[in-house]
């Protein structure tokens, strides 16, 4: 997935959130930001750096303990904001909500992007398989 695609995803999530999302990052599994929303960029880099390893580590532990996958991690902060982390195919999505957010809406937006990227990924795989046959 190209950097432009990640930026599109972030744009879609933020524009539909009615101001519920203050900051949004898509990072690689090793914690490098691929696309960001919210200033300054340094903060987004820090979020990417903590969110990606946190998600990957949790995923690994849960795989061994419960033989299952992690869908999303929701960290509740004392200022009534939330840090929500989810996997988006090859990237990790991390976002900071506004104070007392509409979590139902935030979750819906994340889930709809997860479904969209799954569909896109399977389409890409199919087209690659077709190319191989050709």
């Amino acid at each position: 997935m190209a950097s432009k695609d990640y930026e599109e995803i972030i744009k879609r999530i933020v524009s539909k959130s009615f101001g519920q999302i203050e900051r949004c990052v898509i990072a690689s599994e090793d914690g490098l930001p691929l696309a960001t929303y919210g200033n300054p960029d340094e903060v987004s880099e820090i979020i990417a750096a903590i969110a990606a390893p946190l998600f990957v580590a949790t995923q690994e532990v849960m795989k061994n303990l419960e033989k299952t996958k992690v869908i999303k991690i929701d960290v509740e902060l004392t200022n009534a904001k939330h840090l929500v982390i989810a996997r988006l195919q090859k990237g990790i999505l991390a976002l900071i909500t506004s104070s007392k957010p509409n979590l139902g809406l935030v979750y819906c937006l994340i889930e709809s992007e997860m479904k969209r990227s799954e569909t896109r990924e399977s389409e890409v795989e199919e087209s690659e398989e077709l190319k191989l046959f050709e």
Partner: protein
Amino acid sequence: MLDLLLLALNSALSTISVILVLIVLRELRRRSESDLLSRINAIKREFVNEVKILRGVFERVKDSNVNVLSAIETRLKGLDRVMSSLEERLNSVVMKKSSAVKVVDGLDGLDCIFRDDGLIVYGSYDKEFVAYVTQALRALKDVGLDELSVKRGNTTVHIKALGHRSWTFYCLKESPYPVRFDSEKILKELGGIVGQ
């Protein structure tokens, strides 16, 4: 029916005509001219009488059929009247039913209960709808919104705020009829599930 009668009448008249011609031909061979004329006149009278009788029979049959048809028509009109009065009664019953308010006084009667952070805490419903309704409720909270009805397809979604604790809860019920929520009873039941 009348077509059949006419066909039968025609056939009878043709048969009688043929018989008459045969009789006249036979008499021509057997009798003298004066006898013959009187005999022909007699036969003619007989024939006219026979035709008159036949005509009378057919007219009676026709009249009886007309009577049957008019009786059927009268019966049908009666049935129409019964049908229309029944329809009116049914419509009034439906109107009464549809205007009757459904009272929801427990969790069983609800589709779901959600918090003002958009998360469903009891039951289940379209999550996306709940998320966007929560957003709308947040915007309308400042103007003292207590209840909200949203038309959705053929039904209406009824939502009511359930007082304030650590969270504001909203109960939701989808129904084509007007709904009245008994907040106290619902909150009492809900307390046992989500804690006070």
